[in-house]
Every structure is written in C-alpha cells, then in structure tokens.
C-alpha cells in the first residue's frame, strides 16, 4: 500500500466512499512510540544487558520507523517491527565490539549468519508475530527494571527525570525540553551524561533485590512526584500549569501501581496526584490568573479523579503497613476534596495529619503548612508563634513561602505595616510571575 496516499474506496455494501487516514504519519509513529517505548527499551536492555546501548538501539529503531512508516504504513505488529530493528542493530553493535571485547565475541558467535541480520533489509512490513525477543512473562519485570534504572540514585535528579520521560514515557528530547523550558541540547546532554554515569557505576539492569527495593522505590516515587509538581507549578516563567506533564506523571504512577501493587506508598502517591490533579480545572481563572484553594469554584473539580484518588488511598491503607508520607499528603488532599467549602473543611483533622506527616517526613515546609492549618482551625494568634519559630530557626530562608504566610497571619491580626513588609520580601523571593502578581494584589487589598 502506498503510504501517505489517501485512496477513496467504496464503502461496504455500496455505501458511501470512505477515505482511509494516512497510515503512518509522524503523529502515528509518536503515538505507537508512547505505547511501546518502555517495553521495547526494557526488552532490548534485558537482551543486551546494557541499558545505555538499549536506549541507543531503541532510538535508532524509532528513527527508522519515522522514515519507513510514512512510506509503507504502520506495520500490523508495530512492537515486533521495532524490536526486530532494535535487535538487528544490537547484533551489528555486538559484531563491531566483538573485535575489542571478549564478552561480545561470545554473544556474536551465537548469532545466525547471513545478510538478514545486518540490518540492510527492512523488516517485513506485515511484521512477524511479535519479535523473537518478546516474552510476555518477562515484559513487566523488564519495564519495572527500566523504571528502577532510569531513577537510579547514582543519577542527578534532572537526569532521572529526563531519562524516565525518555525511556518510560517515550517522549522525545524536544518534548522534554518544551515541558521543562530548557533547550533541547540540554536535555540531550543530560541523557547522554546519565547513560555514561550508569555505565561507569556498572549499574546492573534488574529489579533491585528485596533488601534494596524499598529505598530504590523511594527514588522512583520522588521522580514521579517531581515530574508532577514541575507540571503543576512552573518553577519559573509565566505558565502556571503544564497539564500534559502532570497528566503523564499520573499515568506513569498508574503504570507503577500495576507493577508493584503491594507497596502502599505507590498507591499513596497515586492518590495524592489524582486528588491534586482533580483541582486543575479550578486552579486558573478565566483571565488566566491562578486561583487559590479558598477561592476555587469546587464545582469545577474533576470528580472522577477524586473518586480514583480516594480509591487509591483506600488501597494504600488496605496493604496494611500504614500510610507513608505520600499517603498522608493524599489524606490531607482528601479532606479538601470532600469538603463543600473552606469553612466546612475538617481543619482539625488536617492539623492532625500534618502532625503525622511531620513525624514521618520532618521538613520546614510541612511545619509551615501545619501552621497554616492551625491558623484556620484555631485562628492566626495560635499559628503565628509556629511561623516565628521557623523564622528564628532560619528555615526556608530563601523561599517566598515563609514571609507570604507570615504576612497573611499578621494581616489577619490587624498588623498591616508588618504584613506588607513580609509580602514585599515574599515578592522579591518568588520566581513565578503569576504568583508574584497574586502576592502584590493581596498586599494592595490591605491598604
């Protein structure tokens, strides 16, 4: 079939003519890649035992698809097609390396002879029934090993995020760069450096052994959380929400919840992300300005996401080891999700949950949030000493959060001059233009 051509054919039973969509445009290739990339890269990494090589091979297979599919159409078994190309490229690589390396010499001796494996011939467009490498019993472990490797603690946070989005989500360097507002070359450099780091540290491609697993899972969860928060609040620039990125983080967490169903914190994180994403439709006003929780039109919240989030939280509790920090944060988000208004929110329960969170994962941000909850539950006079204590300890010195909360509390106590000074400090420290504007307007209202 001539790809790219739109051929009108008569409909069945002499019905109206139908026009097939172009079979293999770039968008179709990218759609297949989003579905298949994790399994392709995971399978190739198991086959080669080399994560960095597998990532290169997967990218080569994708590049070939971008040439071949628009011409020949999307193959019937796209995953098999991509794997076949990847495997051929692997064999080429083994042969090149076998001259230098005994290990690859052994691998290449087992390969069949003949031109078909050199990669010169294109795979059968109809595709084999999956590839020889495809093993349905191994595939989930391969994807899980891929996630653990991409989020390995030897990598920097930026590298973990870029690598996860590349190999697990199947995003291109361009897409990752757009999502993080950095140049494409920066993303490419991060990925190249990350692969070298993994090779230098001789990180094996495997699901970590049980004794390491809990800690390594923590690294994976923090990467997913980071992708989500980057998507839901831009750290810089004027775009308040990049929902595609946040939604991708939710999808990846769902994938992980299927892969490790017995870990409460995976479900806790899923609950937290679903319950937070549920507020997205109400977080930006018609004028594009951010709307804070207390001013949001709660009718706009995504109730299906709330239902999924609450179900995930129930699941996290049912595993039976108690909630972790993500689960407790999800429980706090649930208090908001089920409340018809700010006044009807169970703030005492939120204070209690922050107490728990403060013990599970002590941090000045948690203490500050607890102080905010205390201010609503028991009034600003009860909360101010907590915030003053944080200020005395020098916590959060570089963040706009502390002065903005302190300013708010002072204003509620009628100490407007002090309040305005705090807000001015907050404006200076805040990196997000929209948030700065919000702070300024708040201070103006006190005049």
């Amino acid at each position: 079939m001539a790809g790219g051509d739109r051929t009108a054919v008569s409909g069945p039973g002499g019905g109206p003519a139908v026009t097939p969509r172009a079979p293999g445009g770039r968008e179709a290739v990218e759609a297949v890649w989003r579905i298949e990339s994790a399994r392709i890269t995971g399978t190739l990494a198991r086959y080669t035992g080399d994560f960095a090589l597998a990532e290169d091979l997967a990218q080569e297979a994708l590049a070939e698809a971008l040439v071949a599919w628009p011409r020949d159409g999307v193959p019937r078994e796209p995953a098999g097609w991509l794997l076949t190309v990847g495997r051929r490229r692997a064999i080429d690589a083994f042969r090149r390396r076998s001259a230098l390396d005994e290990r690859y010499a052994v691998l290449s001796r087992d390969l069949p002879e003949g031109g078909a494996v050199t990669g010169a011939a294109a795979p059968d467009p109809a595709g084999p029934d999956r590839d020889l490498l495809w093993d349905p019993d191994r595939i989930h472990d391969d994807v899980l090993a891929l996630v653990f490797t991409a989020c390995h603690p030897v990598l920097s946070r930026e590298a973990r995020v870029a690598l996860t989005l590349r190999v697990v989500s199947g995003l291109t360097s361009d897409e990752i760069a757009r999502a993080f507002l950095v140049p494409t070359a920066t993303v490419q450099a991060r990925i190249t450096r990350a692969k070298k780091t993994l090779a230098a540290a001789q990180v094996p491609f495997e699901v970590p052994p049980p004794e390491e697993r809990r800690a390594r899972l923590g690294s994976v969860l923090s990467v997913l959380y980071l992708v989500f928060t980057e998507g839901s609040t831009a750290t810089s620039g004027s775009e308040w929400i990049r929902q595609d990125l946040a939604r991708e983080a939710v999808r990846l967490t769902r994938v992980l919840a299927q892969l490790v169903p017995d870990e409460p914190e995976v479900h806790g994180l899923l609950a937290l992300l679903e319950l937070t994403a549920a507020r997205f439709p109400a977080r930006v006003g018609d004028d594009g300005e951010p709307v804070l929780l207390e001013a949001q039109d709660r009718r706009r919240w995504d109730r299906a996401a709330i239902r999924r989030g609450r179900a995930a939280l129930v699941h996290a509790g049912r595993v039976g080891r108690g909630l972790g920090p993500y689960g407790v944060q999800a429980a706090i988000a649930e208090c908001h999700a089920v409340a018809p208004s700010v006044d009807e929110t169970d703030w005492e329960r939120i204070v209690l949950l922050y107490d728990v969170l403060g013990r599970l994962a002590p941090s000045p941000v948690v203490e500050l949030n607890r102080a905010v909850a205390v201010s609503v539950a028991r009034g600003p006079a009860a909360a101010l000493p907590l915030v003053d204590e944080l200020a005395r300890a020098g916590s959060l010195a570089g963040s706009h959060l502390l002065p903005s909360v302190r300013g708010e509390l002072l204003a509620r106590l009628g100490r407007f001059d002090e309040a305005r000074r705090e807000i001015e400090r907050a404006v200076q420290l805040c990196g997000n233009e929209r948030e700065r504007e919000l702070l300024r307007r708040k201070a103006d209202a006190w005049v």
Partner: protein
Amino acid sequence: MKYMLIMRATDETYAAFQDVDFSEVVESMGRFNDEMIRAGVLVAAEGLDDPAKGVVVDYSAESPVVTDGPYGETKELFGGFWILDVASLEEAVEWAKRAPLAGPGSKTEIRRVTSIDEFPQDNEWIQKERAWRAATGQL
C-alpha cells in the same frame, strides 16, 4: 483527552461470533484490557448484550414507535465501548488497532468524549448535572 472506542458490528459479525470459543474471547479481551490498565489509559469500559434482545424506540412518527429486536438493518450494531484517557487521537487509534476484534463488518469508531466544562456553566441544568457528577464521581 478522553476518547470513546465504540465497537461496531454487523449481523454477519454476530453470526460468525457464534462459532468462536467464548473462553478464548474472554482471554483475548482480558489481555487487551489488562494492557490498557497497565498502561494507565483505561478509564471505563462496558459491553452490551445481544442486539436481538434489544428494543428500538423510533421518534419519526408523531408518537414514538417501539419495536423489538436489533437496530435498523443490523449493519451498524453497537456492541460496547472503552473510554481511554490518552494524549492524542492517534494514540486512541493505535490502541483501537490492538483490540482483539476480527471478522466481516467488525469495526471500531473513535469519538472524543466531551467534558461538561464545554457547556454553558451558568445554565441551571448544567449546574444540576455537575452536582450529580460531584455526588457520584461520574466522568
């Protein structure tokens, strides 16, 4: 974005289906659904009973006319649906291509699912519907 994958079939498809081993259908459909669950894209799915057991209400005449049996000339029977939350129409298409459906006249139609946000929010009935969605956690 949410898309509905609508299973369409003809009476021919249903006739051919009679010869298929039901446990095989459960197996292949189960695998397909599991793949979409594992990929984090499946939002909802339902299947419909035999169209011969259905009833059609026709509004062409002044008062509605009710007939037993399948809709129309059984060329466009609606067998069930999936709702997927995916990044693009193309991704929905790629999932549809993986569905374990086969046979004469067997098709999947793909349509975007609209959101209540796209309707006038000051309308009283939209607000009532929102309240129902809020109470029951509907999409």
